[in-house]
């Protein structure tokens, strides 16, 4: 797909009302804590709310993509891969589309950085931090839990740290990102589906509750 629109001039971002905001899963924090287990067959689930997320469109292989990559200090990821680490990452979403993920509060800065790099070229950068919330699923049994809901082959031979995929968990579209070998995963889900996805995950985790 070709990106045709020129980069718009920067507009001032509104002040974020961080004091008044609520995350989609904050009302279930205690429940997630209670249903998480440790040990050899343990699995833990919690929300990582308010991560900064920038949706990036850039023509693949063009001058724009190297400029953006330089400005971020990270190579743009190859297919189904993540470049960077959990604190500063770019995820592959499509042939001309990536998702920049960073800790809470970084969106405005990242947006300015990327748009400066894109100036005069093609592409776009949009703050989509409010689109999805993030779940972190980790522990020795985490892969077994995901396998109940996901049709991808998550065995280490085909999916490992630094891999990502947009896929279905149950009936929900998610961005699935494996962070480490434990295994630990980030599951990025649209806010309105988060409750339903947590229901599915807790159900899949139930068998590991007693050890």
């Amino acid at each position: 797909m070709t990106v045709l629109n020129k980069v718009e001039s920067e507009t001032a971002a509104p002040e974020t009302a961080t004091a008044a905001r609520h995350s989609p899963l904050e009302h279930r924090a205690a429940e997630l804590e209670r249903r998480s287990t440790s040990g050899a067959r343990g699995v833990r689930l919690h929300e990582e709310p308010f991560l900064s997320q920038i949706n990036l469109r850039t023509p693949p292989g063009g001058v724009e993509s190297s400029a953006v990559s330089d400005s971020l200090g990270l190579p743009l990821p190859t297919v189904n891969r993540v470049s960077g680490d959990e604190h500063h990452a770019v995820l592959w979403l499509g042939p001309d589309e990536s998702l920049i993920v960073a800790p809470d509060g970084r969106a405005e800065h990242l947006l300015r950085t990327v748009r400066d790099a894109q100036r005069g070229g093609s592409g776009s950068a949009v703050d989509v931090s409010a689109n999805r919330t993030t779940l972190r699923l980790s522990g020795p049994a985490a892969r077994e839990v995901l396998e109940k809901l996901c049709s991808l082959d998550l065995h280490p031979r085909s999916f490992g740290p630094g891999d990502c995929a947009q896929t279905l968990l149950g009936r929900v579209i998610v961005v699935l990102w494996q962070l480490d070998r434990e295994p630990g995963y980030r599951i990025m889900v649209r806010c309105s589906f988060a409750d339903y996805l947590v229901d599915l995950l807790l159900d899949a985790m139930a068998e590991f509750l007693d050890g």
Partner: protein
Amino acid sequence: MLLVRCPWCGDRDEAEFRYGGQADVDYPADPHQLDDAAWGEYLFVRANPLGSFNERWVHTAGCRRWFSLVRDTATNEMSPDIPRRRESR
């Protein structure tokens, strides 16, 4: 359940896709020149072969890209020889 090969993401479950019908149906060069029958033909009439069929799919739950593939309508076998013509759309 079919395994569909997205040219970008690789083999994925059929449930991640939506079907887009026959591929390579060109928009008429000058629609105003068509009479009603020809316009109706363009809008609604599609090939329905037994065997190889070029068709459009979209990876809805994945990369959201449209692509074409060749499917055998009798066996559901999908050819890895994806027609390249419209991939850029």
